[in-house]
């Protein structure tokens, strides 16, 4: 099995391919777990608040006071929240749910488009099969063993779950107009990534990467000179290059 996530590549009229990274079992399970908690909490809250409004106490004995009004204002909506959470939200949010949004994934068709309401309903209808026999065993097995990590609902609806992580506008916000003194844009990008990951890297690794980057950006810098600099000095030098102050 390839270590790299499978991709959905769509040809466009511009000749530039649209490349979408397909979400695997981990991202899917993560999104589902968040959604499951949200819908459970919402349904349970609705049930308890509604019951409290009827009984005016913390008792669950609704008795004769409830009747059909209780059933239609408390029980039916609570079940509806739990059971219809996915289909309704996916249709309204164009293939996303709060859980999917948090996990950075969304549902698309095999041509990369937003699925139609019909496709999203079919996708959710087949949860009946995917959830068999318990805890989505069939669906999960299908996701693990299919090339594009699709469950049966996705196969039926012709949909895929792809990554939709907003790489964040920060990546563009931090860009500066290059000057004669700055790195070229590609090297500057590497510099920015290195600075962002600085704290997570081991001291030897970050020093090594900073030296490599600096010597590549400015061949005039001797390796001996760079070897003598401390980690903080190297960091400051990379920052100056990225900002065009070098």
């Amino acid at each position, binding site marked *: 099995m390839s270590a790299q996530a499978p991709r959905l590549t769509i040809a466009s009229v511009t000749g530039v391919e649209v490349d979408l990274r397909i979400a695997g079992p981990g991202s899917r399970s993560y999104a589902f777990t968040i959604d499951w908690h949200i819908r459970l909490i919402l349904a349970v809250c609705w049930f308890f608040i509604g019951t409290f409004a009827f009984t005016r106490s913390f008792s669950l004995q609704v008795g004769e006071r409830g009747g059909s009004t209780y059933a239609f204002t408390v029980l039916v909506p609570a079940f509806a929240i739990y059971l219809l959470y996915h289909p309704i939200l996916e249709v309204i949010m164009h293939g996303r749910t709060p859980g999917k949004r948090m996990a950075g994934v969304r549902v698309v068709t095999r041509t990369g488009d937003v699925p139609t309401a019909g496709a999203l309903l079919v996708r959710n209808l087949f949860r009946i099969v995917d959830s068999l026999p318990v805890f989505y065993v069939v669906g999960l097995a299908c996701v693990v063993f299919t090339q594009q990590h699709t469950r049966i609902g996705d196969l039926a609806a*012709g949909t895929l779950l792809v990554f939709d992580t907003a790489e964040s506008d920060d990546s563009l916000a931090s860009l500066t107009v290059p000057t004669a003194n700055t790195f070229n*844009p590609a090297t500057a990008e590497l510099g920015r990534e290195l600075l962002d990951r600085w704290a997570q890297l081991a001291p030897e690794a970050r020093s090594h990467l900073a030296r490599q980057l600096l010597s590549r950006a400015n061949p005039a810098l001797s390796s001996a000179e760079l070897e003598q600099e401390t980690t903080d000095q190297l960091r400051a030098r990379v920052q100056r290059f990225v900002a065009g102050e070098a």
Partner: protein
Amino acid sequence: MSDTGLKHWFGSRIEKWRQLGARLDELERRRLPSADEAIEAIDLYRALGRDLSIARRVMPNTRVTRVLEQRFAKLHTIIYRKPHNWRARMRSLFRDEIPSVFAELKIPLQWIGLLLALSTAAGWWLVTTYPELIGLMASEEMISGVEKGHLWTEGMLNVMPSSIVSVGILTNNIVVSLTAFCLGIFFGLGTFYIISLNGLMLGAMMAFTHQHGLAGELLKFITAHGVVELSVICVSGAAGVMLGESLIRPRYATRRESFQIAAGKTSRVLLMCALLLIGCGFIEGYLSPDPDFPMINRVVVGFGYFMVMIGAFTGRLFGRSSQAYPGQIRP
């Protein structure tokens, strides 16, 4: 590209890329964009395609390239999304698409009808021959009630209001119907199982009530809703069979494609099934358990609702002419 050229290109694009995010969000929110907005989107698409192509070449695997890829994918989705016209979509669905799929389901429907009839007969025969088998089909409470000469439907309205009974019944029927369809994925065997089980239980209950002289009461109870209810479950079963058949005998290049097209087509019929079962649920909750509701009225309701079902599945209820050509349905 030379270093200077690259820097110049990069410097000239930064501000445009920054503004793109907010503009794309605006375009995504507009469900009915103007012609100017559509042209703007296409121009952006071309420009962004060029930028992305250069970025992929000169600075591959960087965050800027990834952001551009995301923006390009988002713009692609915006440009290629289908126009929203719910009214026209619904009209086409109910008037043309559902009737066309229903026409394709006629042969599986006959087989499923036969299976239901055979399993009902089998249920009848089993309980007539081995009366103790009713214990496998019905609850103790139901059995003791019938043995005392009371149908379980008697006094149903004294226990729960009609509205709750209706919702409970229609939910159960819709679940049975959807399950009969979905289990068709197991090469149709799951559908056969659900239909046979329902037929077996129906036959068994009919035989059991007949043994205790309550067959007339049961018939009276089911007349108003039963015909449509069983017919709709058969239609769902036929849709499930079509799903199974798409895997056994794929009509398209791959089984996956064949299954996807069959699921997309047949699920449209299920929408109509669910709507009809909602009606059945209300009839079963409000009219069928009412002992004062005369038999002739039950027959009229049952027959009338059956005609509504035929009209809905053939599209005539929605203005489809009888000569309409059963057009090919989009997958």
